[in-house]
């Protein structure tokens, strides 16, 4: 039967698709401009070996069952050269107000002239990872690519192999940042029109008792067509520190977005990772938060709003490694037309992590009969005195809700939009920074008013 051989062929194809990247890695690692300390060269090489071994994942692998990455594997993407500032108003892409430190990256490369990093408090580092590697190597070395981020995900391994630049944040002990920090990643087309790949690598480190609010956003200039963002963000939240992060994915319509976020939290720390997906043709985001100190609290929220044939896949893992930690996970997805969402929520409670309190909710609103959402909780509990709950919903807009709003004079379209907005705003309410919330509120409203014709 041909069916028996076809998967092997695909597996072989996806493994072979790694070769151009292995080849490019030789150029990259021999390139003087990419010269970095020895420890990083070793970590890059180890990661490339891992990626070369696995190649691109196939949908036969459980973790990739619902997401077919062949469109990425079959295209040849070129590493983006340092770009000049694109001819756009960066302000238009900023999430949040003007009162923020802004680090802008174009095609993965830091662009100081577009950034605004004046007046940082003493000891605080905000900016480019590449620049920081020279001066702050001793801060970076203990954290960057040290965790097993690359072990489980070929895309994270590929990113690690090509670590060069990305957002860097360091907040020293006891310091609270008075303004939000925004790392903005803009995609712009290459001069020759070849599809580009960027590997943004972000590292956020908060020391004991530090506090910060961070936005990580991805967007494209209007002329950017097919490209691929392959990002990794590592987050280290020290003892008693508080970090709020907002991640906003607004990639171009033909873009691919693969990403891994890995957070480690110390004792009594607070970390919220709130993630929004509006863009991209295909998006996959793995989030792994480790509650690695007693009494730590993690919030992991997400909102996806998709239409057309967009696809978003969230794989989240909340790892309770120590006792008395709490985690709150709330993911909402809105899927219109032929779009598709996947949510895989894993909660691991390690032996000894007693008094764990973990709550996971995934709600999916289907605005079209052709839209689809899959939700899968995975509980792995190795302690006996814990509270773990999970729940998921899936369905269209409730007719009784619709009638209630119509009975107040709203048209069907207005009522549907308002109900969809309400569904989305459950996640918006979790955004503490008012200017960021206002900005996201506008993005949601724009999404609701720019409904494209069905089947587009």
């Amino acid at each position, binding site marked *: 039967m041909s069916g028996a051989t076809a998967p092997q062929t695909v597996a072989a194809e996806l493994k072979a698709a790694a070769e151009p990247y292995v080849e490019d890695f030789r150029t990259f690692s021999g390139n003087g401009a990419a010269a970095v300390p020895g420890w990083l060269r070793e970590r890059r090489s180890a990661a490339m070996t891992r990626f070369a071994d696995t190649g691109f994942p196939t949908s036969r692998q459980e973790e990739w069952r619902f997401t077919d990455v062949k469109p990425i594997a079959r295209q040849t993407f070129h590493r983006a050269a340092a770009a000049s500032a694109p001819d756009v108003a960066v302000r238009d892409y900023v999430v949040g107000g003007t009162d923020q430190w802004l680090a802008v990256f174009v095609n993965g490369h830091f662009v100081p002239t577009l950034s605004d990093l004046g007046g940082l408090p003493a000891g605080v580092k905000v900016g480019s990872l590449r620049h920081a590697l020279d001066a702050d190597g001793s801060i970076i070395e203990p954290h960057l690519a040290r965790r097993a981020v690359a072990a489980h995900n070929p895309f994270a391994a590929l990113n690690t192999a090509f670590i060069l630049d990305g957002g860097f944040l360091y907040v020293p002990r006891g310091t609270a940042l008075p303004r939000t920090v925004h790392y903005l990643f803009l995609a712009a087309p290459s001069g020759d029109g070849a599809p580009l790949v960027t590997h943004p690598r972000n590292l956020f480190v908060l020391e004991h008792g530090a506090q910060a609010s961070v936005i990580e956003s991805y967007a494209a200039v209007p002329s950017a067509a097919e490209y691929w963002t392959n990002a990794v963000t590592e987050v280290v939240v020290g003892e008693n520190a508080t970090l709020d992060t907002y991640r906003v994915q607004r990639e171009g319509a033909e873009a691919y977005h693969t990403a891994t976020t890995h957070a480690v939290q110390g004792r009594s720390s607070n970390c919220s990772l709130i993630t929004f997906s509006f863009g991209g043709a295909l998006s996959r985001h793995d989030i792994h938060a480790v509650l690695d100190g007693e009494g730590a609290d993690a919030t992991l929220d997400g909102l996806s709003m998709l239409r057309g044939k967009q696809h978003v896949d969230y794989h989240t893992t909340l790892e309770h490694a120590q006792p008395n930690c709490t985690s709150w996970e709330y993911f909402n997805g809105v899927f219109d037309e032929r779009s598709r969402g996947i949510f895989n929520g894993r909660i691991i409670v390690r032996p000894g992590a007693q008094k764990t309190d973990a709550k996971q909710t995934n709600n999916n609103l289907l605005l079209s009969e052709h839209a689809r959402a899959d939700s899968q909780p995975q509980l792995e509990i190795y302690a006996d005195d814990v509270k773990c709950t999970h729940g998921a919903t899936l369905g269209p807009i409730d007719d009784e809700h619709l009638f209630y709003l119509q009975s107040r004079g709203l048209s069907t379209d207005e009522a549907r939009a308002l109900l969809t907005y309400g569904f989305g705003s459950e996640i918006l*309410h979790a955004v503490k920074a008012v200017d960021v919330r206002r900005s996201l509120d506008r993005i949601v409203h724009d999404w609701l008013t720019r409904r494209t014709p069905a089947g587009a």
Partner: protein
Amino acid sequence: MLEVKQLRGGIEGKEILKGIDLSVKPGEVHAIMGPNGSGKSTLAQILAGHPGYEVTGGSATFDGQDLLGMEADERARAGLFLAFQYPVAIRGVTNAYFLQSAVNAKRKERGLEELDTLEFADLIEARLAMLGWDDTLIHRAVNDGLSGGEKKRNEIIQLATLEPRLAILDETDSGLDIDAVQAVAEAVNKLRSAERSFVIVTHYERILKYVTPDHVHVLAGGKVVMSGDMQLALDLEARGYDWITNGVAVG
């Protein structure tokens, strides 16, 4: 204002209304009473245009317009309001935001400029002052996590803000303690005017002690079996529904 003639209809193929006649003139308050299953709520839902209910015969006009030919939202914008027996919770949307959208939907249709958030805040403040209620409900999500009494108050706030010409109250008094019934009744009395009519659908005569109706109708078996004034409601209180419904069964 509202002329209902020989209205028949029901849900899921089951006919519940079997020829209802009702005539409501501007400024009048009508009470529709009746035991469980008599068709009171079905009448309210059909008049408001619930798409799940089916009209199988008869007619209903509102200010001369064919009510049954209009969608629920068109009826609302034309000045009809239904206070729900069981208002649904809309998570993530505040009452203020919802009501502003509803007020503006009505204004848009009349060619009036839409109210911005500040103008709407003034409007809602004035309406609450008229009711003598505070604004705690306004900033909460629509009916989400509200008590039964709060939900009913919320319906009245909507009524007061949207200022319909005809308000149908579907068992707004059910499940409320006497203080809450009085509060709702007081609000209705404040909203009564020569132009605005009310249809109060109720199982109990209790609310009618505070809102004196011009007409009282008793519904049984999907028909109006008796009409009268406040005295009829008092008779029902004293004697229950059996003497009427038994009569229907016999007749």
